[in-house]
């Protein structure tokens, strides 16, 4: 459908309606008083702020409905500041709305594009000046300049190289080796199978030799979750079953999706749930993914006991723990 007609004629700006304060000096006086009172409320706010800063002890807590226990010092500082600022704003706006001129003004608009003669003058200036530089006539300068400018951008990128080391093979490795003892986290105590009851869960780390300190980087890949269920509840192939010990099974706690700690274990269903993106793993089936975005099971650590009866790793993880990366060999 096209515009068959011109639209209705524009009736023009509606007639100006005077406000009360414009015609009635009494109303104007009243508005003036209101603005003044609003400014005074702001002054009160600042006074409250100063009082709260020096006069209210920081150890006092008061109960606010919905918000719960709130520190009185911070609360009244904030309320004072809020009052002081808010009422300045209200005063200014009220002033503008009641007392400042409210005649609508019309400003004219020009088209954004310049006049044609300015545009052509501009274009010819550019052409002329570019010609003076002679870039078009000297292709050798043009090409070498392009090359130089292109290459100079490489140096800042090169400078960023020392931001970090190369990953080497680190993403594939953890501190778990054959014979490494499992120690509690926190506590760093070696544990025996009897320490974990059926239905129990424990977070463990690999035991570190004397003098070696555990950093967050280590925890970020070594964290292992021990879960004990009744051995007959396992639904594992013989190899994976041999990685368990008396119903105790060990998984990397670092999610195979995006590396969050897979911390929620539901005892009745034997499911592990990652609270970040809800990937759900079935403990009885070697942490097979049964729901959510994770594409791989949690890596399983083969465990057994050493001569003193403490739980140890029988071998390192046989795959990289944590989220995927390009070089990861996921067979």
């Amino acid at each position: 459908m096209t515009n068959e007609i011109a639209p209705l004629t524009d009736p023009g700006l509606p007639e100006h309606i005077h406000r009360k304060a414009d015609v009635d000096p009494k109303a104007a006086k009243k508005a003036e008083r209101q603005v003044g009172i609003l400014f005074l409320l702001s002054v009160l706010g600042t006074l409250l702020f100063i009082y709260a800063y020096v006069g209210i002890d920081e150890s006092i807590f008061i109960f606010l409905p919905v918000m719960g226990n709130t520190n009185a010092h911070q609360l009244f500082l904030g309320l004072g500041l809020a009052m002081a600022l808010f009422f300045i704003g209200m005063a200014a706006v009220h002033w503008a709305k009641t007392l400042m001129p409210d005649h609508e003004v019309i400003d004219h608009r020009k088209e954004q594009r310049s006049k044609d003669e300015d545009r052509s003058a501009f274009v010819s200036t550019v052409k002329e000046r570019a010609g003076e530089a002679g870039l078009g006539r000297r292709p050798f300068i043009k090409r070498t300049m392009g090359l130089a400018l292109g290459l100079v951008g490489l140096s800042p990128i090169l400078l960023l190289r020392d931001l970090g080391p190369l990953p080497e093979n680190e993403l594939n490795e953890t501190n778990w080796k054959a014979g490494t003892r499992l120690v509690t986290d926190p506590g760093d105590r070696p544990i025996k199978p009897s320490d974990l009851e059926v239905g129990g869960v424990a977070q463990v780390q690999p035991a570190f030799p004397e003098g070696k300190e555990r950093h967050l980087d280590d925890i970020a890949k070594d964290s292992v979750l021990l879960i004990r269920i009744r051995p007959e509840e396992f639904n594992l192939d013989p190899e994976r079953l041999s990685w368990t010990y008396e119903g105790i099974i060990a998984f990397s706690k670092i999610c195979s999706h995006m590396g969050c700690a897979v911390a929620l274990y539901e005892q009745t269903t034997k499911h592990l749930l990652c609270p970040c993106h809800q990937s759900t793993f079935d403990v009885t089936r070697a942490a097979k993914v049964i729901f959510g975005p994770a594409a791989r099971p949690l890596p399983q650590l083969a465990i057994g006991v050493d001569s003193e009866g403490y739980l140890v790793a029988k071998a390192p993880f046989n795959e990289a723990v944590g989220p995927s990366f390009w070089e990861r060999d996921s067979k």
Partner: protein
Amino acid sequence: MSARERVAGQVANYVDERTGAAKWLKKTLTKVFPDHWSFMLGEVVLYSFIILLLSGTFLTFWFDPSMREVEYEGSYEPLSGLKMSAAYASTLHISFDVRGGLLMRQIHHWAALIFMAAMVAHLMRVFFTGAFRKPREFNWIIGVGLLTLGIVEGFLGYSLPDDLLSGTGIRIAEAIIQALPVVGSYLAYFVFGGAFPGEVFIQRIYTVHILLIPGIFLALITAHLMLVWYQKHTQYPGPGRTEKNVVGYPLMPVYMAKAGGFFFIVFGITAFLGAVASINPIWLYGPYTPGQISAGSQPDWYMGWLDGLVRMAPPLETHAFGHTISWNILIPGLIIPGIIFTGMALYPFIESWMTGDKREHHLLDRPRNAPNRTALGAMSITFMLVALINGGNDLIATHFALSINQIMWFTRIGIIVLPPLAFVITKRICLSLQRADREKVLHGRETGRLVMLPHGEFIEVHEPLSPEKAYLLTQHEQLPALEPVVADANGVRNPKGARAKLQARLSQANQEQIAKPTSKEMLEIEDHH
């Protein structure tokens, strides 16, 4: 001449003799701004940015951006003696041992949430009214840039305290970097200075958070405002308002008072929220360690949609030739957001291509008069909302006693089905509203007064619209759609090529309108009465 006027004259003279600014200042002080509540959304963004600069500067005086391990000895007893990073300890110090520190932290966080919310609201206003059309495409692109940077800046900001919740967010960001094909693990090692989490990350994002991005913000916001200033503000249609004028109030004094006052109001409300509404109580989360996590891990709302997309992604990975590609991370974490933000940035050009309209526009559209655009907006919002819902699926599940799996499946299906549905419904609503407008112009407004005629018939009295209202409902132009591409005489099916055919098709859909009343129809109706 009063003494005050004389002083003012002297000051003006002093300044002008040194700058020659009198002409420019005169023009500036009388510059006209149209009045509408929706124009204040952008102002809220600007003001919360200023609040962020002020409160953020205060926080830097005490915050220690370091991952050095310290033992906490401050006054918050539950964490006493615990090992933690200096960043976390100093955040606790600000919260418990600096007077007004917690208040400032909470004002800073609330201001950031308001900053993002106002930015999104402002974006919607600009989109639905067509304010992005020529000549304002540059400003639209700057706006999309600000929005993207705002999301990054907010994420880095809430990551700085190095608490358990924010550390988990960083872990997820690291996994996204690591998932990039070929360069992923190298990039992750460079960003974190080695294996995750390393010991340099906080100090690095600190520099980016307080210097780099705010600097870019300042530059972009300045450019954004200069363009608004130079191009003059758009205005809503109405009597006396045309493409050639701006109707409103002058900068001095009315707009100065209103806009300046509004800054204080926004600041006051933010301070009130900071005073009464606790936000990000990091002392409850504890220090970050990669082996732990708190249930119900949630990002701030402007990241929630992204997290929701990641949560609903199907478990897809490609394993080949000893390499792994994580589609379950790349698609929701990078590819879809990339498409969304690129599409958003390009939309002004796409629309002008679809309509074939290359003219300047300073009068805003009523959303109903651009049904296709409005429907597209509703569709995008629906997409984001479904993703956002899934970003909070764990909290929704616990609050409403629902199964998380059901919510996940609802959103997985919903994100594909609901947006197109929203498009169709919105477009129909727009066309219905156009039809209602047409009825009103032709037959007047329904008054709700029933009258019984002498012969017993009931009629409802219709009142003709005021000329102002009638003008408002008919002032918009209805562009003809581009001619469809038809086979030419020689039987060539697409003489102009597939592109032109697509353009004509889109134009047909885009320009679907309910015809405005013609003057002939108006006259006929008048004769009738």
